């Protein structure tokens, strides 16, 4: 593990730049630094929207109560914005706040986590799992070393015990596995291009919609090496 001074957590703005460079599907939205800015963004992407305080020092947004979903109007936005900013300050006085993310509200759908870490021997390792307790508590995840082939990506999806959830059960439609494969292959390409620059990464959650409708990254976290030329300040 590298000393912490060499490690840096990317701001959401920086993350958006990297993700768009590699063509990742990201939920529509932008960072606001004021209520007026938030209203402008919300008007652009249309209500209902989601509000989140973005800070490298607040990892668990629910714990800190800095997340508002299904915000349906301008008045709800103003109220919500004030509330979560206050909660953020109460949660951690010292926290640096990048701003408030105003994001499109996606339908309640299957969530997956796609990640990247570094193994001291094999280098970058790509991770896939279902969101929520599946990955975190049950550790039901699959790993592969990039570069990934399409075959590798398919096997990663089939390998997790909970993969039936993606195939549609109890009358729910099949999820868009192609979209997951697409994200996995983009992560692989990014890992190969940026070599050892990314120390850890989570795309979490990635909302996977029904077949043909794609997937969207709702949140992401990047820990990069400051020594890398790709992420020099």
């Amino acid at each position, binding site marked *: 593990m590298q000393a912490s001074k060499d490690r840096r957590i990317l701001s959401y703005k920086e993350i958006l730049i990297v993700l768009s460079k590699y063509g990742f599907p990201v939920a529509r939205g932008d960072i606001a630094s004021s209520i007026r800015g938030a209203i402008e963004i919300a008007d652009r992407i249309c209500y209902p929207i989601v509000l989140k305080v973005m800070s490298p020092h607040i990892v668990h947004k629910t714990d800190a109560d800095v997340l508002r979903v299904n915000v349906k109007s301008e008045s709800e936005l103003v109220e919500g914005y004030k509330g979560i900013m206050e909660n953020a300050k109460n949660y951690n006085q010292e926290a640096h706040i990048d701003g408030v993310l105003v994001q499109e509200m996606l339908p309640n759908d299957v969530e997956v986590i796609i*990640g990247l*870490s570094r*193994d001291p021997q094999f280098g970058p390792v790509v991770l896939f799992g279902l969101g929520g307790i599946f990955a975190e508590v049950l550790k039901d995840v699959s790993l592969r070393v990039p570069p990934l082939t399409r075959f590798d990506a398919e096997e990663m999806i089939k390998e997790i015990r909970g993969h039936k959830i993606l195939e549609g059960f109890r009358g729910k439609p099949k999820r868009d596995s192609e979209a997951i494969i697409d994200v996995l292959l983009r992560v692989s390409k990014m890992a190969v291009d940026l070599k050892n620059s990314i120390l850890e990464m989570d795309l979490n959650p990635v909302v996977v919609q029904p077949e043909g409708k794609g997937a969207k990254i709702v949140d992401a976290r990047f820990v990069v090496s400051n020594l890398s030329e790709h992420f020099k300040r």
Partner: protein
Amino acid sequence: MDKSKKGRNLEPLFRPKTIAIVGASESGLYPAGILRNLLRYKYEGKIFPVNPRRETVQGLKSYPKVLDIEGDIDLAVVIVPRGFVIDVLSQCAEKKVKAVIIITAGFGEADEYGKQLQEKIADLARETGMIICGPNTAGLANIIDKIPLIARLDPAPIPGKVGFASQSGALMMALYGNFRDREIGLSIMVSTGNQVDMDLSECIKYLASDKDTKVIVTFIEGLRDTNTFLEAADLALEKGKPIIVLKVGKTKSGAEAAVTHTGSLTGSDAVYNAVFRQKGIVRVDDIDELIDTAKIFSLFIDKIPDEGGIGIISQSGGLGSLTADICESLNLNLPQLSSEMLKKLTSMDELLSFGSMRNPADVRGEGTRAAMIPRVLEPFIKDNRFAMLGILLARPAVGNEDIPTATTIIEISRATEKPIFVVWIGRKIPDSGSSIDEQPYRILEKNGIPVFFTSKSCLKAIKHLIDYTMFRRRQQSMKASVE
């Protein structure tokens, strides 16, 4: 790894035409043993013993120094005290020896002085480009070409298709006995020692491209060159040569300071497992599973059809049920008997007291007598839903009485393409009065029928083979559809 090492030719190490044995002698495990084995197994190239204190060694002319040998030397085997190793290597370099095996121990694994010496060896390898195996290696043996560069090789080896690369020298020497006991034919075995130059990954890559090796078995303590390992694994998968791995050292997660979920979910051994899965590498947990799996792979690697279950007959209803449970827990396919098969099996007068005709079929003692086995198996052989046949025997294999059973099974196996395996509870009787090679299970194993003590050990190995075969077919068909 140095760029210059990529794809270098290891033939002088594994197929030398001329060998110098530096430190050869009349006694001592290595000084005498390696030369003795070369002579005993009739190595076809030239041997030059080097020993300044002797005129001859084991009947061959002895040379005082490496530099005194006339002609080119492909390989030098170095068995001198560690203080002399650097000098010998310098002579080898001057003589333009292509490869060196350093048997001598007492280097990086020993003490500070040993570490310094090892550094010097590493420098020498880099500067000269000599291939170095070791130090602290038990050597290697190319069984196919009769080049046994190890101290012990008893009884005489069986040439075959299994290549074995080990990071433990002692285990390589010991496992030779296990392979030999199970009649597993070997192509090459090699112990990597301290890996000052050639490491395990490079050995595996060599075995993947070796024409005689069809199945690779390896014992891993820890990989040094993971890039070459991945290349080796890709090459082996491409060529359809399975790699069976026994790996130790489940190291602590390197992700203690992780702040992402991914970081905390990717420990080191989990990554090894992922790499093995990604490349179709078979991981086994212990020595017995390693041997059983190597046995099944070496016999049946090319014999697994796409769709196909296992058809089993059992002498005992209890053993049949136990085996059915094991198959279910391993997710192995046991197709049900067709009505036509049932009719055939139940119409045999000899099976009057038949048990239950499921799969495994309880054919009782009558159905597993030598005279009956061909008739009982016939419906399974004719039905394409069965790709593999198993015979479960539960009786003490008391000497001669069971020899006809063994010979009958051998005859059946010669007449069908379908792999046949035997689980024989009671296969070995300590006081049967016959020599070990006359025991029925040995006769079966000598003739290509694997015999197991337990259903679980047998079916686990079969499961590995089916998983590997299916993985490779999925991977190949995907590749074909992309191209």
